């Protein structure tokens, strides 16, 4: 028996039986290894039905056993364990069985293979491990590190980058930009045969672990397949040449109140493919973040780069369940419990959102609870199975702190701790340190997992969700916010605003970060949840509603910290549908104003700001603004036939449809406002700038400027007797 040490790159089912593992060894080899890996799923239900299912299965290539396993909500349950010798057969058999016996409850039947592997072996994706081999087959695996390690040994990946010269959805690309290490060159797409041969040779020469593309999912890989067929050339971009590229179709779905469009996908085996243009949060945390999410969730890098963090948190919950002997139900079983009307009114609340005192205030400190909701779930043991069991007389049941740690806190605790450790590490680092960017990306990737974990408690399809646990988290959060407010007021502060997990406080004479330390210590002592000082604003403006100046809006504010850094929320600058032209001007104006050291000084900077705005208007009138900066982006919320009176985006989409482009809900449409309506940006014909609707763009700019400048008009005052 020999052994190999290295990093685990990929795990998938082998159609020949067992699983395939790709190991990147310390000697920089990429090994394709095989491992026997039987997979088990469970069926439970009425005895007669189970017996019929047993008769149905007994002549198939499966092992059947009677077993007792734990359901998170029902406790110990008699089940039929169905073990298949090869995991690749499981989805087919499960689909067949559930069709024949739809009333049985099924468990562990749709768990991603990588999670089964991690739960069984303790090794994890991108983790270091030692494998013991006999005749090329793994006999045993020894994990050499943990996925919770804050600074895991870096993996030296070979990365090949491929990107077309133009967006293929708009124009026909002429060549590919290719980059490997420091080497950069162009590959002409014509003639196709020569292009394919060159690309194939490059793939063999570089043997990349990751092919990083732009439009690889939606254009390059589908095209490569077509071109290879047309030219009669065998072209397989997989490292495992026994596999074909795994293709997933494009879809549109509804999430977080909006329609989201996800392009087609092309996944590889033995190496990864990530399309930067089809990766959900690439802009925010890039490859390092996707790898961090893959490490902690147990889903592959290709999956995590494209999936929402919700899929990641579900995977983590499944892994916790598997490791703790809890079966994972195929379908959610927990429905909302019955409540009286008043119980419902008490429970059905979100986080505490105050209405701020309108106007400009300063100096003001912003204090944030760190990862408040996950911290509450961990500290108060809030999980679907721990909440609401013994809560007699308590209006909104919360977690039982003396019960064994629930599935959700057990899943989140190490995640919360790892993120905190990463953030602490970042605080110690010099910002110029080259590790800082990587650590920031990893912390951001973990943050997103923590952000969605709360929503998944109440999500109707979450396996381990239950609305009461969701409500318990917000109930505790509201109580903690009120406690924090009371602590601040006891110490003489005015609470200007509170927003779910942060407070804005002010007191005369309190100007430096250190001035707020006693307050923060008092809040931590009272609530038991860690907090951090986001910063001290020289001035901050809380805005009023555009409809009624007397009504404050909670989620729109901007201000300048002591070091001049801006913080902006909810205004045009932050909105995706604002044109670059307006966004840039609003940002410059805010930067001009950020030089003011107090609310009183702001008016000194107004003349400069107004002059700047006028100069920009002159630029537009004179045609000196690039058309690209005037593009408006709006998402289509429905299919084009569904509009009674088409929005500007729908009208632009109709123009594109007329030239043969396929349009789906959730897609972002870019257009310009013209005197006769709109002009879709992706049309081949370039717009003559004289056709622009200047008045419309001026009104967009005026609106954005009004947001900033109107806030200085009046400031709410409180009677001094408070």
């Amino acid at each position: 028996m020999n052994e190999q040490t290295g990093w685990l790159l990929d795990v998938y089912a082998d159609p020949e039986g067992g699983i395939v593992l790709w190991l990147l060894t310390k000697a920089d080899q990429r090994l394709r290894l095989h491992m026997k890996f039987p997979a088990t799923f469970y069926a439970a239900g009425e005895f007669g039905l189970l017996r019929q299912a047993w008769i149905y299965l007994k002549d198939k290539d499966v092992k059947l056993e009677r077993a007792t396993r734990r359901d998170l909500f029902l406790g110990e349950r008699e089940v039929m364990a169905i073990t298949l010798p090869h995991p690749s057969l499981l989805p087919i058999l499960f689909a067949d069985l559930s069709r024949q016996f739809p009333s049985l409850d099924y468990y562990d039947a749709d768990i991603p293979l990588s999670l089964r592997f991690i739960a069984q072996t303790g090794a994890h994706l991108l983790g270091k491990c030692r494998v013991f081999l006999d005749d090329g087959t793994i006999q045993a695996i020894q994990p050499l590190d943990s996925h919770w390690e804050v600074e895991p040994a870096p993996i030296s990946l070979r990365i090949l980058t491929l990107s077309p010269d133009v967006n293929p959805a708009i124009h026909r690309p002429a060549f590919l930009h290719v980059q490997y290490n420091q080497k950069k060159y162009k590959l002409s797409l014509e003639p196709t045969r020569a292009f394919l041969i060159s690309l194939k040779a490059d793939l063999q020469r570089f043997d990349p672990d990751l092919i990083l593309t732009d439009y690889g999912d939606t254009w390059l890989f589908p095209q490569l397949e077509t071109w290879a067929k047309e030219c009669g050339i065998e072209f397989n971009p997989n490292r495992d040449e026994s596999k074909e590229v795994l293709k997933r179709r494009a879809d549109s779905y509804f999430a977080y109140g909006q329609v989201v469009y996800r392009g087609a996908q092309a996944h590889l085996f033995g190496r990864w493919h990530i399309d930067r243009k089809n990766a959900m949060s690439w802009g925010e945390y890039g490859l390092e973040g996707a790898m961090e999410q893959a490490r902690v969730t147990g889903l592959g890098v290709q999956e995590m780069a494209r999936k929402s963090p919700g899929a990641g948190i579900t995977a983590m919950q499944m892994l916790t369940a598997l490791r703790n002997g809890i079966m994972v139900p195929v379908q959610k079983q927990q429905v909302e419990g019955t409540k009286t009307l008043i119980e419902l009114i008490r429970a059905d609340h979100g986080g505490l959102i105050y209405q701020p005192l309108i106007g400009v205030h300063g100096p003001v400190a912003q204090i944030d609870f760190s990862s408040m909701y996950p911290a509450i779930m961990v500290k108060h043991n809030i999980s679907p199975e721990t909440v609401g069991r013994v809560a007699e007389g308590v209006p909104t049941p919360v977690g039982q702190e003396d019960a064994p740690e629930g599935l959700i806190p057990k899943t989140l605790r190490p995640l919360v701790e790892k993120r905190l450790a990463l953030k602490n590490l970042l605080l110690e680092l010099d910002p110029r340190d080259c590790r800082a960017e990587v650590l920031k990306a990893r912390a951001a990737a973990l943050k997103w997992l923590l952000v969605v974990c709360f929503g998944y408690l109440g999500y109707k399809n979450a396996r381990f969700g239950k609305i009461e646990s969701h409500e318990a988290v917000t109930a505790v959060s509201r109580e903690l916010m009120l406690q924090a407010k009371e602590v601040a007021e006891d110490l003489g502060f005015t609470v200007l605003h509170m927003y779910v997990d942060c407070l804005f406080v002010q007191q005369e004479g309190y100007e430096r970060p250190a001035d707020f330390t006693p307050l923060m210590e008092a809040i931590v002592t009272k609530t038991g949840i860690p907090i951090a000082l986001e910063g001290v604003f020289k001035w901050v403006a809380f805005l009023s509603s555009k409809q009624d100046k007397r009504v404050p809006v909670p989620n729109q504010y901007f201000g300048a910290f002591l070091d001049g850094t801006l913080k902006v929320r909810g205004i045009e600058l932050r909105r995706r549908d604002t044109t670059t032209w307006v966004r840039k001007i609003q940002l410059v104006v805010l930067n001009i104003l950020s030089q003011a050291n107090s609310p009183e000084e702001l008016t000194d900077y107004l003349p400069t700001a107004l002059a700047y705005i006028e100069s920009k208007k002159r630029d537009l009138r004179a045609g000196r603004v690039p058309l690209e900066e005037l593009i408006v982006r709006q998402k289509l919320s429905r299919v084009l036939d569904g509009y009674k009176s088409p929005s500007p985006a729908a009208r632009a989409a109709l123009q594109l449809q007329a030239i043969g482009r396929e349009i789906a809900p959730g897609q972002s449409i870019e257009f310009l406002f013209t005197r006769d309506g709109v002009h879709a940006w992706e049309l081949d014909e370039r717009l003559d700038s004289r056709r622009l609707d200047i008045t419309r763009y001026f009104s967009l700019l005026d609106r954005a400027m009004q947001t900033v400048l109107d806030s200085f008009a009046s400031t709410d005052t409180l009677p001094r007797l408070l």
Partner: protein
Amino acid sequence: MGRTVITITQQLTETEGMLSPFRRTLRRGDQYIFDGLFAAARRHIAAIGQAESLLPFETALLAMLLEQAKEIAVLQQELEQLRTKCE
């Protein structure tokens, strides 16, 4: 989250809608003051929500009163200051 109970913001908007014939009949100047009452209630949406009342508009009326009382207190203070200055 798919909330079952409508939010306080929605409830206030609904009540305001229900009272629109009342508002319409008021003189233009009175309409502005009427809108101000609802604006006053909207400054305390969080507190009205926390009251967990079956009839939140009752609490909203209290919020309107609170804003009026606050305004009176501010005016009294200003009056005191002016009086002191004059003396």
